[in-house]
């Protein structure tokens, strides 16, 4: 038999050829782009990243000054993207879980309301929803001069929600350390309780000791050190309240818009996951004498999660990518920073390339995290 008839050889040759073709095409495009940029006297390269950015950002979690570099500005924008993505993922999961369960409720009104929620929200484009939330905040709320006082030091206005923030005290580091010690203690207790149950059949209370072990040491250390806690309270200056913690209207609109939109999809995923578990599983677990809560935790959820995790990963990725709509409502995310940098430097190819690389990285990170979690909840024996 001639070697070219060998399927393995042929397959290998095909793959190498295609791969080489793809690389050659990529190299051609890059080389041609550089040539043409040079021919048109358009400056290229990433040298601008080290230069002073010179523009201010509306909000940043990391310290940022206009005198910092473009790279730093990009980082600040990326951190803002992470912030709204993370907060959005948490909120959309909670909302989606509740609405998804509500759609399966035997209560007619609750189930209908949940259906209405899902069908309305997932069928209106996200950009319109963002405009809606933003318009709601800046049109309905009073200007910062006449901010609504929601409680001691809490003010709501067109300038956002401002609230008192605890000031850092050296004692807080010890509290944090005690908290970190509490977590392994709780995990250890859980193991021990399970082993004991396996050995003796006796069940120990789980919830209270776990909470106590996690929070207890931290609270005790906090009290021993004299409960040092002072708040930075927002104070009104010439135009608006300054100081303390702040949720800007831009962040609020983006966060609410993204979370609520995505929660409609997550709700459907949750519903599908629960329905995917055969009712016979419930009955069988009940026949073994398990209580309702244990049936859910030990039998239904492990099987439902197997169905829920992969499509939920998609929704999380959508949320993270949709966060680039932030520019529409003025939130200084990565896209916003890219826009400004692009305009100031004129280096469109580089700026867009960096942005695409960063979004790709963020998406791959979320994907990787969810895949790990998926492996944990997957049923090991099934292939």
């Amino acid at each position, binding site marked *: 038999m001639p070697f070219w008839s060998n399927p393995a050889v042929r397959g290998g040759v095909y793959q190498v050829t295609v791969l080489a073709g793809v690389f050659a095409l990529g190299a051609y*495009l*890059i080389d*041609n*782009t550089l*040539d*043409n*940029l040079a*021919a*048109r*006297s*358009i*400056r290229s390269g990433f040298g601008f990243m080290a230069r002073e950015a*010179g*523009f*201010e*950002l*509306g*909000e940043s979690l990391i310290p940022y000054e*206009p*005198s910092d570099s473009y790279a730093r500005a990009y980082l600040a924008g990326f951190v803002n993207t992470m912030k709204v993505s993370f907060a959005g993922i948490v909120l959309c999961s909670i909302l989606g879980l509740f609405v998804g369960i509500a759609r399966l409720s035997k209560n007619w009104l609750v189930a209908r309301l949940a259906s209405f929620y899902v069908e309305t929200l997932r069928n209106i484009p996200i950009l319109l929803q963002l*405009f809606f939330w*933003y*318009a709601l905040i*800046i*049109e309905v709320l009073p*200007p*910062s*001069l006449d901010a609504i006082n929601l409680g001691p030091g809490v003010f709501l206005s*067109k*300038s956002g929600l401002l609230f008192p923030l605890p000031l850092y005290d050296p004692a807080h580091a010890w509290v944090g350390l005690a908290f970190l010690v509490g977590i392994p203690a709780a995990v250890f207790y859980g193991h021990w309780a399970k082993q004991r149950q396996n050995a003796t059949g006796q069940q120990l209370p789980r919830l209270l000791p776990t909470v106590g072990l996690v929070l207890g040491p931290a609270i005790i250390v906090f009290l021993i050190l004299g409960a040092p806690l002072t708040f930075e309270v927002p104070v009104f*200056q*010439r*135009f*608006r309240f*300054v100081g303390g913690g702040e949720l*800007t*209207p*831009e962040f609020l609109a983006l966060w609410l818009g993204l979370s609520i939109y995505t929660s409609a999809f997550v709700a459907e995923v949750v519903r599908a996951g629960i329905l995917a578990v055969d009712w016979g599983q419930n009955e069988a677990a009940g026949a073994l004498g398990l209580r309702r809560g244990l049936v859910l935790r030990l039998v239904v959820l492990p099987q439902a999660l197997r169905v829920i995790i992969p499509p939920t990963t998609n929704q999380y990725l959508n949320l993270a990518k949709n966060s*680039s*709509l932030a*520019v*529409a*409502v*003025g939130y*200084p995310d990565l*896209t*916003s920073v890219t*826009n*400004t940098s*692009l*305009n*100031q*430097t*004129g*280096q*469109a*190819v580089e700026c*867009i390339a960096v942005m695409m690389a960063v979004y790709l990285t963020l998406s791959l990170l979320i994907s990787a995290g969810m895949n790990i979690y998926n492996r944990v909840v997957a049923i090991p024996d099934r292939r």
Partner: protein
Amino acid sequence: MYKKIAMAAAGAAMIAVSASGSANAGPVLNAIKQKDFIQCGVNTGLAGFGIADSQGNWTGIDVDFCRGLAAALLGDRNKVKFTPLSAPQRFTALQSGEIDVLSRNTTNTLTRDASLGLHFVGVWYYDGQGFMVPRRLNVKGAKELNGAEICVQAGTTTELNLTDYFRANRMTFKPVVFESAEEWRKAFFAGRCQATTTDVSALASVRSVDAQNPDDFVILPEVISKEPLGPMVRRGDDEWFAVTKWVLNLMLEAEEKGITTENVDQMRSSTDPTVQRLIGNRDEMGKKLGLAEDWGYKVIKQVGNYGESFERNIGKKTPLRLDRGLNAQWTQGGLMYGMPAR
């Protein structure tokens, strides 16, 4: 926003794919003559500068410049198609060849000259960046704006000027940056920010259109930057560059010489050699530029001189109520100085 990314990506792709051959003499000019219209990049909607009405008719002084080009080159002011561009889109659109000329209140700066592969044609409007605040805040000057939230539009020199001004005066501010001009205006007039900043002409423009009551907003006296606005073309076609440059100068010099749409027919028989060079065929000015001999006549007859365009679009009788100021003729104490056509 996706439009912008798509455009930038398309621009990159076009640059990547198009052959990198050397520029022939006048590729843009030849292409325009062949397709018989000029593709002109303008503002997405800035009253007085570039804005489309409900029938899709474009008006504004930036628009008039493109109409002047069409009249000079193709003999008909209507042989122009407009591409509305947001601030971040505009340079990519020109670099990639999607438009032939960018006439979209764009500031001439060193960095733009040096790094974009584009040419500034000349100054079409001398502007400067200023601030606008709601009257009820009782702010008298920009120095009082310490700590304010300031609404700005993305992708302009505005952000940099604003930051420079506050840094120089050791003040702080909080920018709220919007991608689209519409969202920026909506947010400011809804009261999201205590101030907004852009070129003074644009402040007057949006105040006249978007404010419920224009008198509720004041433009502060400080002008914090120089913003010479003008059209741009791509490098690589010097003949096209020359045409754009001289249509600009023609419209300026026609005003100086008092040639208007109304009197251009009478002036055609004027004995003044300068007038003859502008709108007649003396010394074959049109031929030197590769244009028809009546190019100047057509521009003035169909579009008018610079002053006419100014008064029609942004002058005292329009809602913008802008003074000629720096944009008066040099003979009237302004900076507008049409270079001699001879």
